[in-house]
């Protein structure tokens, strides 16, 4: 029988098992050993592996990212955890100027195997600086790998790969996905880069959902199915390197592509995916495209505005309906309680 565990438990298990397998893996970040244990993802690690391998840090994101790089240069495999992706802005110099570039600018003499875990928030008034999904910043820079798993299975497999990868990996988690449950093998396995997953098969339109928007796309697919539109849903999993071939193959079949990002659209992952698909398919097939993502504003905390800020299953279904049928139909599915958005149960 398949074992069902949560996304949180999958991350914890991957870390726990990799630390047992490889004594060079160490974990640090703000609050990794406090009673809340990063939503539970680091629970039990300090008791098992001790304070030298699992430790909380000063509030010094810039320096501690440099420390991670220095550790990696000395043969360790650090996992640096940030409870908010927004906080990574304090570490950009080390990530972009050093972690990404060391292997190249030192002619291959060194490598920097670090994992940087960070979390995107949503709901319950996360607001301007607890909600940002900034992975496209990192996709822009050669030398960084970026992954945003959406299922417990991939959370474990991607983290194990990230730890073993000899390059810096930005491992991006969405707080709402932490509540997801699903089948996860107990043994160690990896979900390697550059392999997207087709999560639902369909012929009418390709729907790519990134990070938490994968969940909303799966719901949108159900709404669309009700009106006879069969969407193929794809989870890219790894954003860099990106498996564009799987998406191109799907769009070659469907002729329509909607990319729903859990971030802003301008210069974002959705823009990148659509640009690459249209480059590949120009003169091969006419393709209709649509980007969806955050409204181009700062995230507001008040629920009435926040609900307009994010795409959701119904707005996605509505946009895809127009994309498939052509024109503007103002169709919006009636909300189904069985597909209702998972609510974050705050406050915290």
């Amino acid at each position, binding site marked *: 029988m398949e074992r069902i565990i949560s996304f949180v438990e999958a991350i914890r298990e991957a870390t726990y098992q990799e630390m047992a397998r490889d004594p060079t893996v*160490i974990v640090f970040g703000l609050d990794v050993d406090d009673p809340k244990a990063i939503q539970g993802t680091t629970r039990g690690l300090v008791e098992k592996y001790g304070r*030298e391998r699992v430790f909380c*840090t*000063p509030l*010094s994101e*810039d*320096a*501690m*990212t*440099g*420390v*991670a*790089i*220095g*550790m*990696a*240069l*000395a*043969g*360790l495999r*650090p996992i640096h955890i940030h409870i908010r992706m927004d906080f990574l802005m304090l570490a950009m*110099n*080390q990530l972009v*100027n*050093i972690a990404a570039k*060391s*292997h*190249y*600018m*030192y*002619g*291959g*003499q*060194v*490598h920097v195997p670090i994992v940087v875990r960070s979390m995107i928030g949503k709901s319950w008034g996360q607001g301007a600086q607890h909600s940002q999904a900034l992975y496209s910043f990192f996709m822009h820079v*050669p*030398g960084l*790998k970026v992954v945003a798993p959406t299922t417990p299975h991939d959370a474990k497999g991607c983290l194990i790969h990230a730890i*073993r*990868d*000899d*390059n810096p990996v930005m491992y991006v988690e969405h707080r709402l996905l932490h509540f997801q449950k699903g089948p996860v093998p107990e043994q160690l396995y990896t979900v390697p880069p550059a392999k997207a997953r087709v999560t639902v098969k369909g012929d009418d339109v390709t729907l790519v959902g990134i990070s938490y928007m994968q969940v909303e796309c799966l719901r949108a697919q159900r709404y669309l199915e009700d009106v006879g539109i069969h969407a193929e849903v794809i989870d890219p999993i790894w954003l860099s390197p990106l498996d564009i071939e799987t998406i191109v193959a799907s769009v070659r079949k469907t002729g329509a592509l909607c990319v729903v990002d859990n971030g802003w659209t301008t210069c974002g992952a959705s823009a990148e995916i659509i640009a690459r698909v249209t480059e590949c398919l120009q003169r091969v097939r006419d393709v209709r495209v649509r980007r969806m993502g955050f409204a181009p504003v700062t995230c507001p905390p008040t629920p009435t505005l926040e609900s307009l800020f994010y795409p959701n299953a119904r707005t996605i279904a509505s946009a895809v309906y127009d994309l498939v049928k052509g024109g503007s139909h103002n169709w919006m599915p009636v909300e189904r309680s069985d597909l209702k958005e998972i609510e974050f149960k705050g406050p915290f």
Partner: protein
Amino acid sequence: MYEKFYRSLYRSRRVEEEVARVYPTDKIKSPVHLSIGQEAVSVGVCEALRPDDVIFCSYRSHAAYLAKGGDLNQMIAEMYGKVTGCAKGKGGSMHLVDVAHGVMGASAVVGTTIAHAVGYAYAVKFQRKDSVVVSFFGDGATDEGVFYEIMNFAALKKLPVIFICENNSYAIHTHQVRRQSNPNIYERARVFGMPAERIEDDVLRIYERVSAAVQALRAGEHGPFFFECMTYRWKEHVGPNDDFHLGYRTREEAEPWFKNDQVKRLAEMIDARQRERIEQEVEAEILAAFDFAEESPFPDGVELFTDVFREAK
């Protein structure tokens, strides 16, 4: 001992003089930040180290690279952009590296590598090794926020790292007194609970004090240690020339530093025949290194796309 010091000082000075001489030919296609005048810090510190100790550097790192044992041929070839360079022509003068000799890299972004040294020191302690880590940075780096973050962490974890602040008074063209409310860099380090002192431009004194710190660390005393080494950059911030004409500093200010030249000082402390032999050997080595760079090929086009990621073994 003095012969060894003199060889290292003379070698560093002469390598950079040759770099400066060749620079106008445009064969070196890389901005050079010469260490000329500051060699005593690199030599005094690195003479106190073992081969398995490591250093992290700033962009003004030619002297430290050489003093730690970095390969001269690969250094010159790197500046020429040749595939035989220490980074295959992908790093340039500001990113010299020689892992085999403990030169762990240098950054063009001020202050950046201090944190790497401290992370490395964490690993050294974790691995129960008795090697030490040295972080070289300038007074400009102490303007940066990361400096204070990392002083705190290094002291908190009592790491085997020696901080060497090469205070040459200038960040590009701006004097320390125009940037810092109090020019008390070593006193600021003391606030974090680490031994810290200021050393004047004296290669033997630097060697002596840093050796004592290294021995203490090897004997199991905890770190970090901090030294503010007073020094002076003779040439322009970047490039091979003098820059007294710019007006941000005067030749009069520089005169005492010229008079205190540690290369000359050590030259006078050793036997004349020994000195001649050292100089001949170094000159031959430098000549060979520039020939090596001249004759080496540029990287093939395919090199553009290698080393972005390290592939799994």
